[in-house]
């Protein structure tokens, strides 16, 4: 491999493959094309091995400062991003709703601009309202990674899910993915539909009509209301959370009990899976609602793998989007 020199602008032939130009921020899965997706998956593999080393750290983002703006609380995703940044030797500031002056109603724009003035090089944003990372990306001059916005998108979760499946099977071309549950209010569902379709899988969706978003006929998915007919055909059953709070505001289902009966992943349904099929869930699980307690811990469940891939995938995303900042 030819040596490189910072002082020469001539990139020597045979240098490591450069990463293609990409949009500055990762706001939605649609911001990634197949090529970039491949880069992220390759990097994830590298970072997985970094994490197994005695000193699981690389200096790739040394000197960079990342602001984790978690305006909606989430221990799991927040810790995952924080750990990922630290493993890349970046400096991390974490903001949560309670700690920030947002609770004193300082404007969102002022908050992020203040951070930028302090020298933050990039943002990871999570918010309970759809579209906030997009607004922040319009206000700041640095990359923004969407850590989950309202019911809109959660691109890094979809990447974790994709990486978990690719690690298991090598490819998703032709695989049949079945997404079950509250698609209307799920940002994970939206990101995953894009991600799985991009990876070559075909996606079906199963939920009562009250939990399907308007316009789903225009999505690249097939819609079904009969879960028992769909499960034997599926290679991946992806379960979405069904929350009690959802029913309190709006009677989308009469009760969680009824939901569990019609759409919960029971032991019986688990038995009707074909031998190679797997079950996934973005977490945290409501055992007894969308997934029976006994099923959650079976070997067919990839949930723990999903969790363990979280840091490596986020390291790949942070590296890809933040390493090039001068």
């Amino acid at each position, binding site marked *: 491999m030819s040596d490189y020199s910072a002082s020469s602008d001539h990139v020597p032939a045979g240098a490591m493959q450069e990463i293609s130009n990409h949009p500055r921020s990762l706001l939605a899965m649609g911001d990634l094309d197949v090529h970039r997706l491949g880069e992220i998956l390759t990097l994830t593999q590298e970072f997985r091995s970094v994490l197994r080393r005695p000193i699981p750290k690389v200096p790739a983002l040394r000197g960079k400062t990342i602001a984790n703006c978690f305006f909606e609380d989430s221990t799991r995703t927040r810790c995952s991003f924080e750990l990922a940044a630290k493993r890349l030797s970046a400096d991390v500031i974490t903001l949560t709703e309670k700690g920030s002056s947002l609770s004193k109603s300082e404007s969102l*724009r002022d908050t992020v601009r203040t951070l930028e003035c302090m020298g933050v090089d990039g943002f990871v944003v999570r918010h309970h*309202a*759809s579209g906030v990372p997009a*607004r922040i990306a319009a206000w700041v001059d640095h990359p923004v990674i969407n850590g989950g916005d309202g019911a*809109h998108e959660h691109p890094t979760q979809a990447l974790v899910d994709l990486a978990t499946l690719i690690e298991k099977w090598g490819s998703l071309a032709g695989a049949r993915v079945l997404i079950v549950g509250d698609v209307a209010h799920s940002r994970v569902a939206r990101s995953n539909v894009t991600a799985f379709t991009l990876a070559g899988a075909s996606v079906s969706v199963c939920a009562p009509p009250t939990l399907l978003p308007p316009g*789903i006929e225009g999505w690249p998915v097939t819609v079904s209301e009969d879960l028992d007919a769909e499960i034997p055909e599926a290679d991946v059953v992806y379960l979405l959370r069904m929350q009690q709070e959802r029913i309190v505001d709006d009677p989308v289902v009469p009760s969680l009990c009824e939901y569990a009966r019609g759409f919960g992943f029971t032991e019986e349904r688990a038995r009707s899976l074909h031998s190679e099929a797997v079950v996934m869930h973005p977490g945290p699980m409501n055992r007894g609602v969308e997934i029976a307690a006994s099923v959650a811990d079976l070997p067919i469940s990839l949930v723990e793998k999903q969790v363990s891939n979280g840091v490596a995938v986020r390291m790949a995303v942070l590296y890809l989007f933040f390493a090039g900042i001068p």
Partner: protein
Amino acid sequence: MSVTVVRNGQVCSSTGVVNADLVIEGEYISSLVEPGTPVEAAAHVFDASGCLLLPGLVDMHVHLREPGDEEAEDIRSGCAAAVAGGFTDIVAMPNTHPPQDSVGVVEFVREAAARAGLCRVHPAGCVTRARAGKELAGIRELAEAGVVIFTDDGDPVRDSRIMRRALEYVGFLGGLVADHCEDTQLTDGAQMNEGEVSGWLGLAGWPSVAEEIFVARDILLAEYTGSRVHLQHLSTAGAVRLVRDAKARGVMVSAEVTPHHLMLTDEKATEYDPVFKVNPPLRTAADRAAVRLGLADGTIDIVATDHAPHTPENKEEWTEARCGMLGLETALPLVWDLHRKGDLTLERLVDAMSSRPAHLAGLEPRGPLAAGQRADLCVFDMEHEWVVDPSGFHGKSRNTPYEGMTCTGRVRYTFVDGRPVFHADEKVGENKRPGRTAFLVEEGVASEGPTPRMPGRKK
């Protein structure tokens, strides 16, 4: 009495559009003459070459925000925005703080407008006390104070029994109930039109049926009680269809549409820029086509801007943002564009923006310009191309959805009671006395006119 001549324009007269010079004496149009006819004692001359002279526009739906929300707009700045848009009369919505449900507040608004000395402001009254929807407001006293339009705008009149009583009572006193049609039980937490776009963006939707349910209810109640009803800011194809059928049956229903529902669709929400957040929301292309057709064929009687100024803090991020867009300064150029494209006749345009709202709001009748009419004029430069730049707006706020858009056609002058209250090259601001003109034309040397005073005001 001062004599003013507006030369070289094309006048919307009762015989159609004619090339004529218009002579104003005092507060009234004295005559329409051949272009170039010398006029004696013409103290002020205005050049209207390339312009269309329209009767002054009337907007039946404006939020002036004062009292209570003066940071976004106040009566003076709202009137400045109105005259910059060619409006000589506006109806001020009553969702102020305190609301316009008592004579005291109504008088306050009227007097503030008179002090501003720009356009006329006709405050609307609340239907229910404090707009709480529980009991009727003091309708008679408001009517006696000159209020014609009654609305709880911002909110619908939710209780059908109250709506029925309001229709009966207000009608009996000669007023008009205007309803903001929205079934709020279906729109709880809604952020934008419910449809394909909202489904993908993950924003809770406003289903079109929520508007149509109340449109249907109000039509049926008006029919049943034999009274008039006015439906505000219609936005869906279903609503237009209901009104069309109702009119065919003879129900006394009138309807309005905003320029933004004539121009924009819910696709605008894709960037999550809250400048596009409004109630009722921007709808689909099919809905937009339906309301355009409705305006063109008269199903929708008038254009009303629903001018809704907001401070930048209230338009920062979509889900927390307040609903509403500016409308006064861009309304006529946008509706003019529909005319230019052949979707709207000039007769219908003048009717929708001037004559008919004047009629509905209980104002002096106005229509094609003729001698003897009050000199409320909008002089509209038909060819002037300009780019919408909110920093040049005359109102206080900047939340326009048309920033950067190129428009053809712009108001050059506005006259109220024969006084020029707006001149396109001068900013109507605090440091300028209203109605001041400094304008030179080849005929006479214009002098600074006397500072106009509202009648009855001491020096």
